[in-house]
């Protein structure tokens, strides 16, 4: 806690240093391979520092209240700080090596945090799933780093980015390979298709963890990676299109799934995926600073939403199903207010922070050099969905009757509410930081994003958002019957969405079962009858032989002395007669 506060204070004054590498010491130097323990200080990393430590700090404060009764309170904070530390390593790394170190550490920390409630089998399974998915990404990263070292002879960001434009023509095979491999890591960490399945399950962790990892910091690592390596990506326009495509598809895919889920945290998790899709869209079309801006505002309002949801869950003694909530706006006025602000920001309601960042991305998806009308249309559709699902859970949670008899909801303690209020203020007003972010990050990305203005498109996007809110209102406020009608009318689609497009099942069928079959075969035939037998025999034989040899070790000093003399005699024989 103190640590995080300290780092907060340390990094709060925006440092105006650009592209400065601070080598702490040289770690490995073997031939041409050099590895320095260095941190890269430039606006991008300082920006990330601010987001990570800022949001992290608020979440720490919140956790003090949220985890207050947990018997393993200190373990939780140890993990939480390990997470913050690894995230800072990741962000501060000045070369790919330490990036991967941070990357893996973050994966580990998230594994520990998701599985924090280790007595819950589902939490352990979710943690394992997240870890496996992350490791898939790590492997991609490691291979990418190896390819980079092979072609550039260095792993340092500065050197690689300086050398890259001179070495490759656009869309060279190597650069495509590197960028795609890096993307595997980025997609795994940021839960983009097709490596997204861990994120919703990761909601098994404590809510502050969900807020910290799965909203504000860890999942943005992928976005950060793309932004950090934008020099490479600009050399590979195909990859850029790929990123934009995957981003936008994830945005709508996750948005559609979020519309039908009942678990409040799961909905927000899908929403996170969807918003990350927007960020990747921004990266893919080359408006990096908009993506980073959305990253920041998203960190604010998504952490806010998670923590407000956590506050609700807390007061309902762990109830996460929105069907059993309702009518909470009277008992939890502050939580209600902050959740509303978060929802508005997420939906992109005018003048909230989400409005500025998301609208800008949607607009750019049409106006930017690489944007087109398809991207724009899907983005608008996804925005409509976003508005719909967030207000769906908002209305279900805070309005109507309390549908959970026996629960005694109450407002959360101040230590949890104050962080909510801080974040609510940021989520509401964060939009004004937009131009500042643009200019602050400009030295890194080499250009200032031109904000295009297009009244028609803006209006359409806005209408989509408000339309989503209105639909939610109509369906969930006015009449419950209508909701069921709609549900029946669209039953097939509803099922498909509710089962998350059957992605888990497809993975199970395509990957998990064949692997299990192979595993069973390997276990029985190869391991038991092949390897184990050989290993056992080797062990047994060694044991036999050593038993014989151990007779030599009589424990008698004089016998040892005799052995010594024999040795001396033998050596002297050589000396004398050779």
């Amino acid at each position, binding site marked *: 806690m103190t640590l995080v506060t300290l780092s907060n204070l340390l990094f709060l004054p925006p440092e105006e240093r650009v592209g400065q590498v601070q080598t702490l010491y040289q770690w490995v130097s073997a031939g041409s391979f050099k590895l320095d323990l260095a941190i890269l200080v430039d606006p991008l990393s300082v920006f990330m520092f601010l987001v990570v430590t800022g949001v992290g700090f608020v979440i720490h404060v919140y956790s003090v209240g949220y985890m207050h009764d947990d018997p393993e309170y200190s373990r939780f904070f140890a993990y939480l700080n390990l997470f913050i530390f690894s995230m800072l390593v990741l962000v501060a790394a000045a070369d790919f090596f330490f990036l991967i170190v941070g990357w893996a550490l973050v994966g580990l920390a998230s594994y520990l945090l998701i599985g924090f409630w280790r007595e819950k089998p589902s939490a352990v399974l979710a943690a394992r799933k997240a870890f496996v998915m992350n490791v898939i990404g790590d492997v991609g990263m490691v291979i990418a780093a190896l390819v980079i070292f092979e072609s550039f002879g260095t792993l340092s960001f500065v050197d690689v980015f300086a050398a890259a434009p001179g070495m490759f023509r656009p869309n060279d095979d190597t650069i495509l390979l590197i960028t795609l491999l890096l993307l595997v890591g980025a997609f795994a960490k940021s839960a983009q298709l097709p490596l997204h399945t861990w994120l919703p399950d990761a909601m098994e962790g404590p809510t502050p963890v969900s807020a910290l990892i799965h909203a504000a910091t860890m999942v943005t690592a992928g976005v950060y990676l793309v932004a950090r390596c934008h020099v490479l990506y600009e050399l590979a326009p195909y990859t850029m299109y790929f990123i934009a495509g995957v981003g936008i598809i994830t945005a709508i895919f996750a948005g559609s799934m979020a519309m039908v889920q009942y678990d409040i945290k799961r909905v927000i998790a899908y929403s996170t995926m969807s918003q990350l899709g927007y960020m990747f869209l921004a990266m893919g079309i080359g408006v990096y600073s908009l993506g980073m801006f959305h990253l920041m505002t998203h960190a604010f309002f998504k952490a806010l939403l998670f923590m407000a949801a956590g506050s609700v869950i807390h007061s309902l003694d762990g109830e996460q199903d929105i069907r059993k909530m309702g009518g909470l706006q009277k008992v939890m006025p502050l939580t209600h207010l902050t959740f509303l602000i978060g929802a508005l920001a997420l939906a992109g309601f005018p003048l909230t922070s989400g409005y500025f960042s998301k609208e800008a991305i949607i607009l750019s998806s049409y106006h930017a050099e690489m944007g087109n009308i398809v991207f724009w249309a899907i983005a608008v559709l996804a925005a409509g969905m976003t508005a719909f699902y967030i207000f769906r859970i908002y209305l279900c949670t805070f309005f109507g009757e309390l549908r959970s008899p026996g629960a005694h909801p109450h407002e959360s303690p101040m230590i949890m509410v104050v962080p909510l209020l801080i974040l609510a203020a940021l989520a509401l007003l964060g939009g004004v930081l937009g131009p500042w972010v643009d200019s602050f990050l400009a030295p890194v990305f080499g250009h200032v994003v031109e904000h295009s203005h297009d009244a028609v498109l803006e209006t359409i996007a806005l209408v989509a958002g408000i339309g989503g809110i209105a639909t939610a209102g109509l369906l969930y406020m006015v009449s419950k019957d209508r909701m069921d009608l709609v549900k029946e009318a669209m039953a097939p689609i509803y099922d498909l969405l509710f089962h998350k497009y059957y992605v888990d099942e497809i993975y199970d069928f395509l990957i998990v079962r064949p692997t299990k079959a192979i595993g069973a075969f390997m276990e029985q035939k190869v391991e038991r009858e092949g390897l184990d037998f050989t290993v056992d025999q080797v062990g047994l034989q060694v044991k036999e032989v050593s038993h014989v040899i*151990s*007779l*030599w*070790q*009589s*424990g*008698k*000093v*004089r016998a040892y*002395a*005799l052995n010594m*003399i024999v040795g001396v005699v033998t050596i002297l024989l050589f000396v004398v007669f050779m």
Partner: protein
Amino acid sequence: MGQEFVLLISASIFCVGAAGFIIRRNPLIMFMSVELMLNSVNFLLITYSSFLNSLDGQIFALFIMTVAAAEVVVGLAIILTIFRTRHDLDVDHIDMLKG
């Protein structure tokens, strides 16, 4: 007297010491045998120091004596402790490190 004589005397004493160390079972006598071996080497160092007209050998012998004194003191204390716990001084009976 020639240098061969010195070498032969020294070698003889050393071998006698080595034999004593291996054959005897009383740890005290084994320690005495060690002293014999150390002394034979000291003797060689000192005579050759004289032959070579260099004091290094004598200094070396002095240090050997220091180490030997320390070793004897500790060794005797250990023997004493062993005797106190086992009431037996036959080294062949001390074989708890047997493999």
